[in-house]
C-alpha cells in the first residue's frame, strides 16, 4: 500500500496503525518529524506550513516510486501536515515496510532527505515578537 496525504488535522496513532505493513513484512520503519520549541536560538510558539499541493503531490509520488522500486517496499505511507501545527505535534509521518529491516531503514532516510530537498512545502515560524519564513538552503 502506498499513500500520500496532506492534512490539516493532527496525525493520530489510530491513523498510523491502520495503514502499515503486510503479511510479507518482517520490518516496519517509521519516521516522525516533530515541531521543536526552539529554533536557532528563538522560542517558537507554533508553525504554519504552506504547500503548492499539486506539485508537492507529484514530487512526493516520484520520491515514493523511487523508494518503492529501489528497496522493494510493500508499504510506503507519507503524511504531511499543512496549516498551523503546534509544538510537539507531528509535522510529518513516514512509514515503510519490507521483508527485512535494512531496506526499510535506508528507504525511510532517503524519503525524508529527498522531501527536504524538493517537495514544495514551506515552514513559517511564529514567535512572541513576530514570524519568519524558513528556507532551508538560504
Amino acid at each position, binding site marked *: 500500500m502506498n499513500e500520500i496525504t496532506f492534512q490539516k488535522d493532527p496525525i493520530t496513532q489510530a491513523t498510523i496503525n491502520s495503514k502499515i505493513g503486510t503479511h510479507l513484512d518482517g520490518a516496519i520503519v517509521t519516521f516522525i*518529524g516533530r515541531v521543536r520549541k526552539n529554533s536557532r536560538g528563538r522560542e517558537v510558539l507554533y508553525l504554519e*506550513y*504552506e*504547500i*503548492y499541493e*499539486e*506539485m*508537492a503531490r*507529484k514530487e512526493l509520488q516520484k520520491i515514493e516510486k523511487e523508494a518503492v522500486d529501489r528497496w522493494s517496499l510493500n508499504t510506503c505511507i507519507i503524511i*504531511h501536515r499543512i496549516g498551523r501545527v503546534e509544538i510537539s505535534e507531528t*509535522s*510529518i509521518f513516514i512509514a515503510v515496510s519490507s521483508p527485512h529491516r535494512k531496506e526499510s531503514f535506508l528507504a525511510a532516510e532517503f524519503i*525524508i532527505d529527498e*522531501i*527536504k*530537498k*524538493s*517537495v*514544495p*512545502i*514551506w*515552514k*513559517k515560524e511564529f514567535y512572541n515578537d513576530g514570524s519568519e*519564513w*524558513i*528556507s*532551508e*538552503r*538560504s
Partner: protein
Amino acid sequence: MKITIKTFAHFKDICGFQEKELTVSDNITISDILREITRLHPEMHKHATSVLCAINQEYKDLNYRLNDGDKLALFPPVSGG
C-alpha cells in the same frame, strides 16, 4: 500569449500576489520574467540566486521558454518535513 504566475512563502509577501494572469511576448524566458518582477519588487533581488522555478508543476531552469497557457511558479528553497 497568456501565462499564470504563482508565488509562495515570502515571495508571495514580497510580490503582493499569490496568482496572477499575465500577457507576455512569445519566446519569453523565466529569466526575463524574473528580471521584470525584480524591477517591480526590488526586495526580490537578494533572493535571485536561490529562487526555484516550476512550469506546470515541474522544476525548470531559468532559460526555459514559456508557452501559451503555462503556469509558472516562483518560490524560495523548500522547508517542509
